[in-house]
């Protein structure tokens, strides 16, 4: 039984468990990070919403800047999510 998609470039013995071991580890590793980043994106969205509500409660000259910082923070989280998808 051969699996070319898993064995390409591998010159080690073709034992299935051996081949899938490290690959499975990295797949799980990547999946965990993607799930973690997704939760973090939700947190970043909640943060922006809370900033909006607080700037409505207390209006200052910094209100716009704080919302912008929250948006930048969310964009960074989205960029990192995209990075983990393509890696």
């Amino acid at each position, binding site marked *: 039984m051969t699996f070319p998609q898993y064995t390409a470039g591998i010159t080690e013995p073709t034992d299935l468990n051996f081949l899938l071991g490290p690959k499975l580890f990295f797949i799980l590793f*990547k999946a965990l990070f993607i799930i973690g980043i997704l939760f973090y994106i939700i947190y970043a969205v909640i943060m922006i919403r809370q900033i909006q509500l607080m700037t*409505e409660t207390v209006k200052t000259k910094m209100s716009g800047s704080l919302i912008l910082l929250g948006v930048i923070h969310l964009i960074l989280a989205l960029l990192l999510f995209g990075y983990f998808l393509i890696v």
Partner: protein
Amino acid sequence: MPDIFNHPAKKEKIRIKRKFRVTSPAEDKPADKPLIASIPMTPKQDNGHRSVDHYSEVMRAEKPTSNMFKAYAPKPLGVNFTVQEEEEVIILMLRQHPVTQLKWVAISLILALMPLFLNSISFFSFLPPSYELGVILMWYLFILGYIFKSFLRWFFNIYLITDERIIDIDFYNMIRRNMATAKIDRIEDVTATNKGFLGTMFDEGSVVIQTASEKREFEFDGIPHPARVVTLINELILEEERETLEGRVR
């Protein structure tokens, strides 16, 4: 027929009458007579209320500020809150003293330096380079989120003292906040405490305000110049009592 109704003498008589017009006793009374002789009357605003500089020694020594990062911001410019009344003026805006935020600043610095330490011992050597970069980027993103959350918590935890009320706005975390107000004339007791090394060195402490409102106690925790805040609140209480006696209550 002679015109007696427009005779010049009659007009002169009318002119004299108007010059020595008799007024009623009520019109003779001066408009601003102090009810309490010991309290000097000072110029009032159009709404009948005095500016804070007239009755507060604490605020007389302070200039208005537009710096939004100050923990002790007298007469803040460009600040409004949602339940502010039309003629209500914010006299003092308070936040926790910056020295109370050292904990999360120190934690952030340690966390920021940790990847450098872990790299030096090749902690991530088992990961491919692209994964290692991703982990480090994610680590710094989490630290950035932690710093931003801590800053927002400090920035939006505000204590406001207006000429009518005290307001306590608490921003606990991303999903919980609280706002409590009490009128100045409902304040019963005000206490200031400084404790600890940092409190003494940086004049940082707490002000506890007992009220007759629904929320019985307000605590302004970790604020700068607590003694000054207590003095200001006492001055505001006195002014509220004056307003009640003089009928200038809003």
